[in-house]
Each structure stands twice: as structure tokens, then as C-alpha cells.
């Protein structure tokens, strides 16, 4: 009983404070998305109001006055049909162009983005900064810096969602997806899993902390937060015996990995493939799923032997061996 009372009082207090109708807008794209959202809200309210008004007017004006009424026939009107086909068409064309250009911009990270890696796992978010710190269900980022997240999942499909930033993307097992944002306001914001993932889906939530750059730097260096990813990857590279075949000078059983990241590699079939995170992951987890011209398919699979976090460390190591910027057609 007291519980109900408390709930009631809490609700009353919340209503007095006012029910929020807009989530915090704390990223560089949030305002743009909201402008479109409010434009669409306006369209919805306008057309609903117009339709309702016309219906009510007709309802009153043309109400049945006697049982024997036989209103005259109206077949229809071609001009009217054209008008109310063309106007919605133009309207949705405008919305499409507006929304799509916004989305297109929002889907491409700036080249100077800071990178963070995300692994979804029933039911928590693992986040790893290249500099070393690992977090669970918490993400610390500096304000006004573009951040690119590279995401995957250990098990089922999850979805990384920060409402305040208006960004959302699935973390899909077996491949990498990415999203980016640039936080614009200091503060603490919700992080949700927005793709149903099992029993504790609703508990797969956390917080994003947007900090000043100096606070962020202090946070990064504060305490023993694990070694940098590339360094961990290098250790793993040696421990797993990768180094015995992938010699730096290219004389081993496997190709040299130096300077490989970002290149276009030619396969035995003649096809060109870009060496990116996805391809390196494929090479580690399902080796021999593509063949290289001068090497025999002898690499053993590491599926089940290392987890997604370790794969990411290996990738970070390979990236550290390669050119920083991707040079297309460098071969």
C-alpha cells in the first residue's frame, strides 16, 4: 500500500515538474534531426486537423434530416484527384531529399575521428579505447571531438543507441558495423540496447559521459586501465604463433603484414579487395576464405580460440603496422 502511495506521490511530483517532450540534444546532428522531426510533426498535426475539421463540418452540415433523403450523385472529379495526388507526392519528395541528405552526411565519419571499439554481449556493452582503457556499460568521450565506433557482437544482434545523440546502429555478430557522433554538450546521457537480445535486454543499458578534453585526458591516464590495444595485439600475435609465418620481410609462409592495412590486395582470382577491419577479421576467423597469389592456404582457423576482443586487438596491431591513412591503389 505504501508502495502505491509512494508511486502516486512520485508521479504527482513528476507531473508538477512537467512531462518532458524532447530528449536532450547533445550531438552535432541532433538539432538537424530534430528540425526534420518537428517539420514532420507539423505536417502530421496539420493534415490530421484538416481532415478532422472537414469531417466534422460535413457531419454537421450534411447530417441526415429525413429517412427519405436521396442526395444527388457525384461521380468524382479528375482535377481534385490530380491535386490530392500531386501535393502529397511533392511533399514526400521534399521530405525524402531533406532526410536522405541528412542521413547520408550522418553516415560518414569525418576522417579525423577518434576510434573506439564496441562489443555487444548478452547483456552488457564492452567498450575499448585504443589507448588501453576498457569500460563496461560506460562510455567516456571528449566533447566536440568526432568519435567513430566500430562495433560487433559476441552472440546475438544488439543495437547501440544513444538517444541524446540521435544515433543508433546494430552490432551484428560476424561483421563490423560503425557509427559516429560528435558530442556537443557536457553531461551524462543514456545508452540503450535497442534490438531485443534476450532475457535481460532491458538491463543492457549504461551511461555516456561527455567530458572536457582535459578531463578526458586525465581519465585516460588515470590508474592502470590496461595496455593499449595494439600492444596487447602484438603480444597476442606472438603468443598465438602468428609471427612464425607472417614475417615482416615477406619470406614466411604467410604474407607480410607491414603496411598492409588500407591497401587494395589482389586475390588469386584476380579480384581486388580492400584490407580493412572486416577483411582482417575474416582472415583470422575463417582463413582460406580467400586465396592470395603466392601463398598456400595453410593457415589454421582461430574461430573459438580467441574472442572478439582479441580479434580487435590483433586488428589494432595490424593497423599499427600499416600506413595511417588509407592510400587507394597504393600497389
Amino acid at each position, binding site marked *: 500500500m505504501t508502495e502505491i502511495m509512494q508511486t502516486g506521490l*512520485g*508521479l504527482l511530483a*513528476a507531473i508538477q515538474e512537467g*512531462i518532458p*517532450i*524532447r*530528449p536532450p540534444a547533445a550531438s552535432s546532428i541532433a538539432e*538537424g*534531426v530534430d528540425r*526534420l522531426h518537428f517539420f*514532420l510533426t507539423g*505536417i502530421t498535426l496539420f*493534415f*490530421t486537423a484538416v*481532415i478532422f475539421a472537414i*469531417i466534422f463540418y*460535413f457531419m454537421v452540415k*450534411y447530417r*441526415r434530416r429525413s429517412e427519405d*433523403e436521396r*442526395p444527388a*450523385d*457525384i461521380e*468524382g*472529379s479528375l482535377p*481534385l*484527384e490530380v491535386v*490530392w*495526388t500531386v501535393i502529397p507526392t511533392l511533399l*514526400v*519528395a521534399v*521530405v*525524402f531529399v531533406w*532526410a*536522405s541528405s541528412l*542521413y*547520408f552526411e550522418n553516415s560518414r565519419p569525418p576522417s579525423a575521428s577518434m576510434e573506439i571499439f564496441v562489443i555487444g554481449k*548478452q547483456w552488457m556493452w564492452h567498450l575499448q579505447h585504443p589507448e588501453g582503457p576498457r569500460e563496461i556499460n560506460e562510455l567516456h568521450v571528449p566533447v566536440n571531438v568526432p568519435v567513430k565506433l566500430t562495433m560487433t557482437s559476441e*552472440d*546475438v*544482434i544488439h543495437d547501440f*543507441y544513444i538517444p541524446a545523440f*540521435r*544515433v*543508433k*546502429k546494430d552490432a*551484428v*555478430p*560476424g*561483421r563490423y558495423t560503425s557509427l559516429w557522433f560528435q558530442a556537443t554538450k557536457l553531461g551524462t546521457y543514456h545508452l*540503450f540496447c*535497442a*534490438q*531485443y*537480445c*534476450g532475457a535481460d*535486454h*532491458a*538491463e543492457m543499458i549504461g551511461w555516456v559521459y561527455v567530458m572536457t578534453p582535459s578531463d578526458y585526458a586525465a581519465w585516460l591516464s588515470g590508474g592502470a586501465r590496461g595496455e593499449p590495444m595494439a600492444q596487447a595485439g602484438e603480444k597476442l600475435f606472438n603468443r598465438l604463433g602468428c609471427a612464425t609465418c607472417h614475417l615482416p620481410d615477406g619470406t614466411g609462409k604467410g604474407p607480410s603484414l607491414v603496411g598492409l592495412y588500407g591497401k587494395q590486395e589482389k586475390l588469386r582470382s584476380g579480384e581486388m579487395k580492400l584490407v580493412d577491419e572486416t577483411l582482417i577479421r575474416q582472415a583470422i576467423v575463417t582463413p582460406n*576464405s580467400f586465396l592470395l597469389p603466392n601463398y598456400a592456404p595453410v593457415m589454421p582457423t582461430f574461430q573459438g580460440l580467441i574472442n572478439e576482443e582479441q580479434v580487435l586487438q590483433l586488428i589494432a596491431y595490424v593497423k599499427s603496422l600499416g600506413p595511417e591513412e588509407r592510400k587507394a591503389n597504393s600497389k
Partner: protein
Amino acid sequence: MSTAVIDALPEASAQPSRVNYLNASYGIRSWLLTTDHKRIALLYLSSITLMFFVGGAFAVLMRLHLIQPQGALVEPDTYNKLFTLHGVIMIFFFLIPSIPATLGNFLVPMMVGARDLAFPRLNLLSWYIYAIGAIFTLYATISGGVDTGWTFYPPYSSTFSHTQVVPVALGVFITGFSSILTGLNFVVTIHKMRAPGLTWFRLPLFIWAIYATSIIMILGTPVVAITIFLLGLERLLHVGIFDPKIGGDPVLFQHLFWFYSHPAVYIMILPGLGVMSELVTCFSRKRIFGYSFVAFSSMAIAVISFLVWGHHMFVTGQSVYAGLIFSVLSFLVAIPSAVKVFNWTATLYKGSISYQAPMLYALGFIGLFTMGGLTGLFLASLATDVHLNGTYFIVAHFHYIMVGGAVMAYLGGIHFWWPKITGRMYPDGWARFAALVIFVGFNLTFFPQFIIGYLGMPRRYAVYPPEFQVLNVMSSAGASILGVGYLIPLIYLIWSMRYGPAAGPNPWQAKGLEWETPSPPPTENFEEIPVVTEEAYDYAAPHTGVARG
């Protein structure tokens, strides 16, 4: 449409003593082995009503649970099963068969002037298939339930869930064939069994809508059947084509699933749009405004509905290029829907509008469908969809279409044709009251969810951050009103079957072949196959009822 067929019927034919399809034979066998489309419609009516209240009970439990942020009623596990079963039952066992299998089965042969559907035994088989599918699903519900969501996304459903995925998947798979065979039966009937003189452009718009629906059932349902089948195999064999461990793509499942399941939304709403055209014309005594535009918009919706499924997947890591294509196609489908709304509104112009219960449902439908349709623009538009996808905004949007649209139209249709089906009238005052309660309860339940979603609360959450509580409580309060609203018609409709006054062949003075035969109709619908000489909805002509001649 006027015919000279049943002039000879005496006035007393409205009395139940006359031989009709309901009293032509007795006993449980005469129902379970019937091939009469009207009796099969009633078999469907009773079974989907049962499923509706089972699914509705799950919804009520969910809304009760969400009164408190930490969950007021059940464990998260149980909550996940509740929303899954609510979705599976409402979509596959209520909404998809709702109007087509009950009103469609009852009316299609009568509206085209035929004695029965083209394949009556196949029709009965469809009901049995539906019933078997429903039994599998109910069995799974009792024996532990299922927690994958009605969308069955792998790898959760194929590998990680520990619940009764296979029985439910089997239930959905089996029921799919019921839907396919019903659609097939309608298409053949509409093509081959129309009465003499009943050309395509003299057909009631309900028939056009059912025809468009059947096309979707025929072309879409097999795809979801094979997809669910592959999922079941993958779960049983621990290997399959959606398995990321061997390079399979779980997102491909979503493509195949939505290839059917998006058009399936139109399986649910298109027949409702057809019912609307019948209701609006009858209760404003007007020919439909722009007949051919309304008819072709149904066909346009059926075709375009197959081109838009990718908008369910804008955030799944689908390519940006595909996102752009699916977005522009999704916007297109808004246009024929808008055309319909404008034409109904124009039909009211200079009409003679009466406010009996079916018309109240119809007017409620127009408003809610307009809102549901317009909020769809938020989800077709890429930039806003990224924020709203997977939140309560989606839940609110599709409930405006499915409940505010399809269920309102279904109830309107049931109220409209109830006198034809049973030969009895229900109390109109109660029916209007129920329509009002449902309209108010519905908006209270689902309008707050638009805001909850925009604020960022994801759907399928058993617990949620406390700042969303106020709106959730509002929604739950609305749900209790809505629940009561649905119980009222159940009571007075059952009451009317026994105690309602006799309706007579055409209580609404409506046009259409089904109104020119007694209520309830005889087993073969017409004494003699009618010859049609007039356009549809010819309300301007002096009324030619049964007593004429």
C-alpha cells in the same frame, strides 16, 4: 445494383422460421464438416475472437507490468514471453485472418453473386490448417512460451533462446498455408465466379480490397513460410544459412522476413480500407467519390508494399545505398493511402450522413488511420528513423494502423454486416457507446507512446528508467479503458444473437448484392443467380428493397 431475383419473397421471410444457412442443418458435425462459406466464416469468427482475447489479455498484463519502472508484475523473462506471444497471436492469428477470413469469407461470394467460393472444401481445409497452427501456438504458450519477439530474429531465435521456438515457428508456418489457400480461393472466385453483368468496375470496393489483399497473401506468405522453415531447421541442426559462424548473414533473414511481413501489414489494413468504402457510402447515401481511384489505389498499395521492406532495417547495418532506395519507395506508398482518405472525405460532401454505430467506427478509423499513416513518414525518412527505430514510437505508429485502423474497421464491418450474418439487430446505443469508449481508450493508450519513443525509450523493455514513468502510466490507464471497450461489443453482440430484434434483409437500406437476399441468407445465398445491371453504390436511384414489386 438491383435485381429482380427475390421479389417473390414474402415479408415474413425476415423471421427466423425461414430456412437459412444457420438452421439448414443441426449438430456439431454439420458445422465442423460444412463447406458453406458463411458457416466457415463463423468458425473463423469464433476462433479469431478467442485468439483476440488471449492476445489482448497478454497486452493488459504488459501494460499493468509497466506501471512501475522496475516492473510491477512479472519477471523480465515472463515479460519477454508476454510481448512475443501478444505479437505472434495478434498478427498471425488475429489480424491477418481477421477481415479476410470472416467478413471476406462471408461476403465475397455474396458480393460477386455466387453460391459459394470456387473451392468450398479447400476453404474448410484452410480453417482446419489455421486451427492446427493456433493449437501449436497455444500449446507452446502453455508449455513455457517463447521469448524471441514475433520477428524471430536469428541468431537469438536459432541459437540462443531456450524457449519453445520450434513449436511456435511451426504454428506460424502452418497458419501461413491457411492464408495462402484463402487468398487463392478469393482470387479464383473473383475472377471466375462473378454474376452475369458484374464487370470489374461494378464490383464493390471491398472486393477490390480483398483482391489486392489476396495478391499479397499469395505472393508474400510463401516467402515467410520458407524463411521460418529454414530458421526451424537451423535451430534443430545447429547449422544453417543464417549462421554467422560459417559466414551466413543473420541480416538476410530480416530481408526475407520483411519481404513478407511488411506487405503483411497491408494484408491487415487493405481489407479494412475496403470495409471503409462500404461504410462511408452506405451511411452518407452517396456513390463513392472517384471509384476508379479508390479501386486502383488498393492495387497500387498491394504492389508498392512489396518494394519497401528495407525501412525496417535502416539501422541493421544495411547498406546506405539500399537505405536510400527503400526510403524513396516507402514514401511512395503514402500516396495511394492519402488518395483513399481524401476520397472518403469527399464522399461525405453533400451526403445524407447518419450516425449509426458502424459509421462511428468508420469516422474513428479515418482519423486514426490518418495519424498512423502520417507518423509513418517519420519512419520512411532516414534521418528521423535512425532515432525512432526500435523505440516506442514504432509501437505507437503501428498500433495506430493495426488497432486504430484494422481493428476499428473490423469492428465497423462486424457491426455493419451483423444483421446479415445473424438476422438480428444489436442495441445501437450500446454500440455507439462502445465505439466512443474504444476511440478514447485507444488514443489514451497509444498517443503517449509517440512521445515516449521520441524521448528514446526502446521497445521490448521489461524495466525502464524512471523518467519515462508518467507517460507509461498514462498509457496503461488508457489500456484499461480500451480493454473494457472491447468487452462491451462482445457482450451485446452475443446477447443479440438470441434476443435481438429481427433485422430484415436490408436494415441500413444499403446497396450491394448481399443486401438483396434475406437475413440470414439461404445456404446457396441466392434463389437464383442475379443479373447485375447497375454500377456499384447507386444510392441516388430510388431505393429498391426487398418489398419492392
